[in-house]
């Protein structure tokens, strides 16, 4: 195999002992690097390098006709922030609300799958994962049907006077749900719910059920058991789930576009239209970096606060 003259196949333990302590030949030490090379090169060229390129674009000025030049024009950032801060604030608010809703909705389902589903576990699991494989744009469009003006959902909410309350809170407008913040948050929650459920389930499944019995034996009520045992032990899942939900939700522009109106535009919508319609690349680049910085800052604070730094 190697260039060093290898004796006949080691017969028995003596041979194995001789080969073991020998230094690994250089060719073998290079194996991991050869394995990494193509994939990492791909990521460097098509992921890391574009980000650097994007950074330089954000400080360029010029126009599409004359071409863009790096002029270290940092004012783009201030202008972008000055003009689009409402969309920034809205993105964070919507994404945070959707994340909290995902946690509230997802936790019972993850708990159900982990501890109570029994032989139904696989069926429930399939029902959680399968929607993933249908085009999510089609499913988001289905929400248009569900929340349609004069549809059953609006009808029920209206007869229960829920819409009066929500429109007073500014979540809906008049008798409709579509093209209101409620619809966008509903779509965001729906689209990112599986990203919350799966990590929650993974961390709940790892909990030894005997811990629940032990808590019960020590006269803890179910609620106390949950608060003192189950929930703290599921924290890695909670943190992973909230991050997996919040980050893509903050940058999403599909829900705001399909279920909202111009009053619900999020920062993703602005980046998309700056890049693809207005063709103002520096502003689009500056907005992307502002979004990234905001998310990075919030994620860092969150991870510090939740005390699971080993997670990332």
């Amino acid at each position, binding site marked *: 195999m190697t260039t060093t003259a290898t004796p006949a196949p080691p017969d028995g333990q003596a041979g194995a002992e001789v080969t073991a302590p020998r230094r690994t030949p250089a060719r073998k030490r290079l194996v*991991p690097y050869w394995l990494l090379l193509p994939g*990492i090169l791909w990521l460097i060229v098509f992921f890391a390098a*574009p980000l650097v390129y994007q950074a330089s674009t954000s400080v360029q000025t010029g126009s599409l006709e004359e071409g863009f030049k790096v002029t270290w024009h940092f004012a783009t950032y201030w202008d972008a922030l000055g003009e689009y801060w409402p969309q920034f604030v809205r993105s964070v608010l919507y994404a945070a609300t959707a994340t909290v809703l995902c946690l509230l*909705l997802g936790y019972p389902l993850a708990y159900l799958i982990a501890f109570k589903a029994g032989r139904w576990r696989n069926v429930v699991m399939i029902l959680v994962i399968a*929607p993933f494989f249908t085009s999510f744009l089609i499913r988001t469009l289905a929400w248009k049907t569900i929340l349609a003006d004069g549809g059953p959902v609006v009808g029920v909410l209206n007869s229960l006077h829920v819409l009066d309350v929500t429109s007073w809170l500014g979540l809906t407008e008049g008798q409709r749900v579509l093209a209101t913040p409620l619809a966008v948050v509903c779509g965001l929650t729906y689209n990112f719910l599986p990203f919350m459920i799966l990590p929650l389930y993974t961390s709940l499944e790892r909990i030894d059920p005997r811990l629940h019995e032990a808590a019960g034996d020590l006269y803890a009520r179910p609620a106390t058991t949950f608060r003192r045992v189950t929930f703290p032990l599921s924290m890695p899942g909670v943190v992973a789930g909230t991050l997996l939900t919040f980050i*893509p939700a*903050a940058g999403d*522009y599909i829900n705001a576009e399909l279920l909202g109106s111009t009053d619900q535009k999020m920062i993703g919508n602005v*980046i998309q239209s700056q*890049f693809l319609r207005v063709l103002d690349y520096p502003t689009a680049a500056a907005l992307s970096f502002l979004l990234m910085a905001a998310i990075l800052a919030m994620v860092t604070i969150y991870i510090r606060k939740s005390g699971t730094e080993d997670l990332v």
Partner: protein
Amino acid sequence: MAVHETTEATAARTPNRGLRWLRRNIVTLAGLCTLGYLVLPNLVVMVFSFNKPNGRFNYQWQRFSTDAWSDPCGVADLCGSLGLSLQLALWATLGATVLGTMIAFALARYRFRARAGVNTLIFLPMAMPEVVMAASLATLFLNMGIQFGFWTILIAHIMFCLSFVVTAVKARVMSMDPRLEQAAQDLYASPVQTFLRVTLPIAAPGIASGALLSFALSFDDFIITNFNAGSTVTFPMFVWGSAQRGTPVQINVIGTAMFLIAVACVVVGQLAGARRKRSKRS
């Protein structure tokens, strides 16, 4: 204990019974509600695939019809975009799975200097909003003067699927018992034989789930494709465009078919897994 039981029995007979049942099953009920929330749009898509809308938009129920099912390709460009998306997803899966599996093995099996850096580079694409990745890659292509189309989409898809494959395969390889490979070597298997007959079969479920995930991600991706496709229209982009122009019922047919195929695949996978487990036990 006996006293306790009798009090419970009497309490059960009081009108509080419903309330107690509710309290005991509140988690299950809440979970099932969430499940309903998750599945509801799929049901709506299914039901509305049998609709016959009056206008261009398929948002309101008019009357039952199987027209769309008997002619799923009856809309211009729909099946073309579907074929393109399938092709893209296939190649992207192949590329991402091969590259990702190699990285996963390197990370799981070897200690080397750049390990922490590589881990970060793998983690970042999953933790970054898609718009940011999409816009920056498109900026690069634009400045290099590369024509947008099939190849730029494929490059982008392999890029963002890679991390998910690495994560899936790495988890599997890390939990693998290294003694199995040692045993194979002790039995005079060559490194190639060991890899093909022992390592690969054990890692296969991880590779399969990574591949399946990247197929689904690539097939369904809209944001990154939107920035890097130019005038090429994939299936999600067709759906996006139809949201403005008018949604044909055929979109619901394809959505329903995708859902059913996915469920069938997962069920078959589960059954195969269960059978393997059973045969191993006996």
